[in-house]
């Protein structure tokens, strides 16, 4: 009697194990397919990013930017003497214009299509 019970028990255990293994195997297969698909997508995205990075590098070429800036923004090739450093900027609380208060300031836009801004600061 015990032997028969054990027989049924182990046969049942074997059947359950088979089902469990099949389930795990199937889940693994599906997960593997998803992984392959995702890896493929990642590879494609990387490839697209590579192309876009290269394209960005081409369009952001300093020569191209300079031509566009000169053509559409009216900017010039500024010599270094026109540049300044942070040290020369007034600190918070300091009077930026020596002891003379700024009386008025205005921004004038030229009537032409040129988009240059001319900042005019009048002082005493």
């Amino acid at each position: 009697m015990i032997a028969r019970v054990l027989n049924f028990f182990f046969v049942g255990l074997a059947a359950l194990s088979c089902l469990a293994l099949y389930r795990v195997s199937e889940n693994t297969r599906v997960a593997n397919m998803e992984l392959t698909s995702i890896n493929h997508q990642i590879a494609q995205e990387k490839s697209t990013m590579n192309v876009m990075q290269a394209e960005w590098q081409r369009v952001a070429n300093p020569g191209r930017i300079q031509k566009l800036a000169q053509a559409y923004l009216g900017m010039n090739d500024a010599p270094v003497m026109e540049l300044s450093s942070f040290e020369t900027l007034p600190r918070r609380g300091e009077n930026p214009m020596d002891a003379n208060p700024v009386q008025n300031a205005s921004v004038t836009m030229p009537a032409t299509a040129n988009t240059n801004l001319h900042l005019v600061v009048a002082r005493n």
Partner: protein
Amino acid sequence: MAAKPPTTIQRRIVVAAGICVLAFTFVGIRLVDLALLKGRQTGPASVAENAAVVRADIVDRNGRLLARDLPVFDLYAQPADFWDKTGAARGLARVAGVSEARLARAFAGKHRYVLVAKQITPVTRDNVMRLGLPGLEFQPSTKRFYPEGDARQVIGMTQAVSGGRGIAGIEKGLNAQLAAGKPAQLSLDMRIQYALLHSLEATQAKYNAKAAGGIVLNVNTGEILAMASLQDPKRAGYDPTRNIMAANDYELGSVFKVLAFALALQDHTITFDTMFPVGPGFKIGKFTIHDAERMPAVMAAKDILAESSNAGTAQIALRSGPERQKQWLQNLGLLQATHTEIPERARPLYPTNWGQVETATIGFGHGISVTPLAFVSAVAAVVNGGRRIQPTFLKQDGDRRGAQILSPETSLKMRELLRYVVTNGTGKNADVPGYDVGGKTGSAEKNDHGRYIAHKLLTSFCAVFPVDNPRYLVFVMLDEPHGESAVMALAGHTAAPLAGDVIAHIAPMLEMPKTAAAVPIPGKGNS
């Protein structure tokens, strides 16, 4: 009561149960092995194995992309599948940008496969697919893409075929590394490269020069931040891919005097104020060395360099003598080819019989031909405290100065002299307010079949800044510039302002603070 021995069936059940337990134990161990141990490695490893090794990127010192393999496709067609071959030829020609007549002829022929276009981009492939034609095949491959052409002579190129090896420049010099998928980060700074190229182009056009070139070098690390070569496309022998700064030898002329002075100061054969007779020229053997411009009868050594007197420099070089001069130039690496990561190089040309006359002429830069790259490496050693540097196109960290070949004191004196040339001599047009520029002009008459041609000049300027503690060297060169007059074609009016222009543009990019401390300059009448 003795235990009943197990029956045959019971024994079989035990054996079967044992086998089952063993089998499941094995399965369990394997599951743990796959799930916890190997399983974690399987995913990425398998992906990496599947990914083909592509030629690696080349980037500049700031990570800016200079070269990359991009996916392209070779498009093939099977004409037998087309129901309208003429229409297919027209559509494919329009989208792929190839000859319609060629395709029509090929489709009408007997070939089963026809190459429609090579190396089409993914965008073009999508457009081709939108045509809805049957019988098309896309063969994936790669194409080397160079987003910017500003440093093409340094970066070089690969063979045009997919996966081709490097055939010039960095692509050739670092071919093994790049082909193995290891990227290369260069010392080039494309902002500096553009600024140099832009100034060179403008000056070359202004003076209608046959060629122009420039180098920006870090004198402490040997890193080459920019190197440009320009040639006039209208001239014979035009080769836009040639790196004239590394592969061409030049008799550089007066800019070479820096080396003669460094040696003389090192050996204490002169001081700043040692006087030399200059005015009538200097006679050596059957030759008389004259100056291009009228000079005073007697000049101090510092003024000989500042005014670039050949007659004076010849006498200074002769104080060193042939053996010492040759040894000095050997120490500076000027008597052998300069090896860097690029394959383009040239052996220097110098006399086999190095006598008195040769010593005198080499002192002022004639009779010896070196590459500009070799020359700037030598000058860098003169101004960086006297230590040799190895020029490199790869990004480096920290101080890479090598063996001491000149004393720090002599190096300091040379920097003072170079500043004196800019404040009081021929290099005035190279000065940039806020940056203490030191440098030397060179206006060499070109040698044409053994004769020096007075109106064919090679002008150059070698600048260092800031001169009190140099970090960068800027060398510019113009081949046959044409000024309004002969004098206006000299280096002081062509190459010097060009060097100043380059420094004015690149100094802020290099985050160089404007110098506040005054540099001691030997004024007239003191040393």
